[in-house]
């Protein structure tokens, strides 16, 4: 399952989802919660290779991480913030690929995208180990999605690529790369 998480103001990710449905012969599920509605928390969804799920976060209430560390040391694996994030996190943890579709600010991803990434801590444990030459947290689950980024605006591509790679190692998986929205054909080719 490919999960597209769209935080862009212009909802650029929807174009990608439509293209995948039209030319990729994939089943596209659009999750576009309306104002006040929550993303449905369902595991009944088809987690199959054929499925692309698109989530528009505009009307989702997603807080920043407070850094309480409860998801490691008090309620392991669960974030205690009661907002719309948990159903998204469950989808992330089940997906094969997660593509962030993000606007950029100061050359980096927008705070909306960064908030989503900062809240990933429940999918790793407090326990540490070495991966290559650096310390990392041990993943909580056996399956972890690969990460890719498609961005709008003037992104600092070198640093975004470094970020994506480091994040992927942190979450025991690999980076699918970083692509400008206007040149994201190659990214779409990798979505499987």
């Amino acid at each position: 399952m490919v999960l597209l998480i769209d935080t862009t103001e212009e909802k650029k990710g929807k174009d990608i989802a439509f293209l995948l449905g039209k030319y990729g012969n994939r089943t596209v599920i659009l999750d576009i919660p309306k104002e006040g509605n929550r993303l449905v928390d369902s595991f009944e969804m088809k987690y199959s290779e054929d499925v692309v799920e698109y989530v528009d976060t505009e009307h989702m209430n997603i807080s920043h991480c407070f850094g309480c560390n409860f998801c490691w040391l008090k309620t392991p694996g669960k974030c205690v913030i009661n907002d719309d994030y948990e159903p998204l996190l469950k989808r992330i943890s089940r997906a094969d690929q997660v593509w962030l579709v993000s606007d950029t600010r100061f050359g980096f991803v927008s705070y909306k995208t960064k908030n989503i990434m900062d809240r990933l801590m429940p999918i790793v444990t407090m326990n540490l180990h070495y991966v290559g030459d650096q310390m990392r947290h041990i993943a909580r689950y056996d399956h972890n999605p690969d990460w890719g980024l498609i961005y709008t605006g003037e992104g600092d591509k070198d640093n975004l690529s470094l970020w994506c790679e480091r994040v992927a190692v942190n979450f025991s998986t690999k980076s699918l790369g970083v692509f400008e929205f206007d040149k994201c054909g190659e990214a779409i080719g990798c979505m499987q």
Partner: protein
Amino acid sequence: MHAVIINGSPRVSKHSNTERIIDSFAEGLALSGASYERYAISDKDNWDSAREAYIKNTEIIIALPLYVECVPGILLEFLETLPVKDETTRISFILQGGFAEAKQLECGKAFLDKLPGYLGVSYGGTLIKGDNFGIRVLKESEVQKIITPYRNMGKAFVDEDGFKPETVKKFAGPEIFSLPIRLMLQLMFMTLARKNYRDIAKGWGCKVPIDYRPWSA
């Protein structure tokens, strides 16, 4: 020198490691004759006063924790609310993280090196240091060992007029650890560290193992 110090952590000040680091750093500033005022952005009610201070002053230091390899989302949001200023304002950063090696901070540092350019201001450098996770959970004597060295960095900031590359490099410690040290740490992670985390979790009222899986992925 009069510095505005902003804590960019989302953690409430009482639990924030950055706050303790600033305590020590600010002592050093004062020892070298500088004055300072402090702000924290964890409570959004304080954003207006922090922004006002940023606008009115010319020596700004933002201290922040590394969050998922870069700046915390909440700080990115705050930065978006700052007006562009000119080069008479200087901004510097203290970037601190949980993992111990200096290399872990490379992506955050690269972002901060370019940030002043986006804000239109000049740059006074970024101090980087890992191995700060314990501040929140260790006993006070151990905490002092971690935070005291920041006092000298406060002095150096005034005496050397900013964070100078040689000082930063020395303070940051090794980029990565040597293989024998890594092997020793790995052994510790598998034994003593696990026990310590279990004990902390118990103290926090945790009812399940810390590698518990609330759902199957």
